[in-house]
């Protein structure tokens, strides 16, 4: 990952964390997990796979440090989602709808993992009151946002205007 791409990635994550913890924290109807979505979209870029895992881990740690849950919970979940994302990203390359569905499925895996690991480490109550509705709403919101912004983010990070241009 080159210097300019790294700066873009850091800026994107800062914006994601701030928007997630301010705007979407107050609107109950729309509840995406922007940081997780950004991790998933980064899997589609040309960034080295190990670097993507490191970015996923670090961004998860930052969210853990800001929230009340155990340090490392989201780091583990985001890293696992990134690993699955890297392994399956070729399936998402076929079109905008495929990217959106792929991002939605990966988000669903992330939310389930968060609940499972959170429960194992006694963090289930800290994850919020409406955990079951989050199982549906978060993947759907991420799916919609991925359809809109994933190609744009990939082009921005890779600085490749031809990336993800579908006929």
């Amino acid at each position, binding site marked *: 990952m080159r210097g300019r791409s790294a700066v873009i990635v850091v800026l994107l994550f*800062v914006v994601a*964390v*701030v*928007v997630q*913890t*301010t*705007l979407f*924290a*107050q*609107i*109950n*109807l729309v509840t995406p997990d922007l940081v997780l979505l950004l991790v998933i979209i980064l899997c*589609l*870029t*040309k960034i*080295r*796979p*190990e670097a993507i*895992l*490191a970015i996923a*881990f670090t961004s*998860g*740690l*930052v*969210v853990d*440090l*800001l*929230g*009340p*849950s*155990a*340090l*490392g*919970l989201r*780091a*583990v979940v985001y*890293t*696992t989602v990134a*690993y699955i994302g*890297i392994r399956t*990203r*070729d399936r998402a*390359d076929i079109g905008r709808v495929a990217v959106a569905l792929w991002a939605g499925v990966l988000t669903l895996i992330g939310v389930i993992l968060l609940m499972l*690991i959170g*429960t194992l*480490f*006694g963090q*289930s*109550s*800290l*994850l*919020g*009151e*409406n*955990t079951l509705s989050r199982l549906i709403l978060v993947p759907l919101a991420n799916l919609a946002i991925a359809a809109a912004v994933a190609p744009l983010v*990939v082009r921005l990070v*890779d600085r*490749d205007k031809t*990336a*993800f241009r579908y006929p």
Partner: protein
Amino acid sequence: MLSRESSNRLLPTFITLLVVGVLLMTIDVRLEGKGVVGVLRSGTQSIVAPLQEAASLVVNPVADMFDSLTNVASLREQNISLRAELAEAQAELVGVQDRLALLALLEQLYGLDTADPSLGQTVANVIGKVESAFVVDKGTNDGVVVGQPVIDTNGYVVGTVRTVTSGSATIVPITTGRNGITVLVNVQVGTLTPQVNTSEMRLLIGDAREPVLEGDRVVTSAGSISYPAGLPVGVVLHDAAPESHSLTASVEPYVNTDTLRIVVILAWPPDPVTAATDDAGDVEETTTTTTDASTTTTSTLENEG
């Protein structure tokens, strides 16, 4: 299709990060968020809080507008009922002012000492939310310390301060806190604990002598080490009778953390240092720093909520 690098080191990197993550979780759970982890949390929060504060200036009106649009049908009725409530409250206020004036006169006549019993209060704006916890724009500079109780503008219990920086604090609500609150229902003392996937809380009275009834008010008990006595917490949802001297019931907290914009942080105990000496078992760590303007005491209480 994009050409991307493939790597043989992907799986080892993934496993290493997983192991590190699980180790961190284990350490954090064992340390209960204190020590190095607490310092890291405060550090991260002090970096992100100014950004959240700036963003909330733009976001709050947008969120309010969004809320208004989704509730537009009920706003008119709500307005009428609120006006009626306001008129009633103003009438009550006049009555209370009369009684206060009478009380002041009687105190003057009998030469009573009227020490101010009110607690120090810090009013704070909610600037962000992470999972169930929320971030407010007041910190140690405003006298906020870890463990202090937080209420909403109606006086209902919200939670406790979890971490604090110079200009912000993270508050964990009672509905998601790790431990329980000691509460009073009528004359019986019990413990209120959060439950998974619901805002309802579980009331457990160990030495129950009488049933609790639907609608009974639940308030903080004098036995609580994290909250002053008498703060309203919630209401009992269903009747419950004692079984083998113990009783369990569901309680709906009064506070709705989703709609909180402003909270009040109570300076309680009024003097944490004295409280620490009085009851060393309840307070695990206390540090005092003196600044030009004020003395700020940071204490980590045995967290109830």
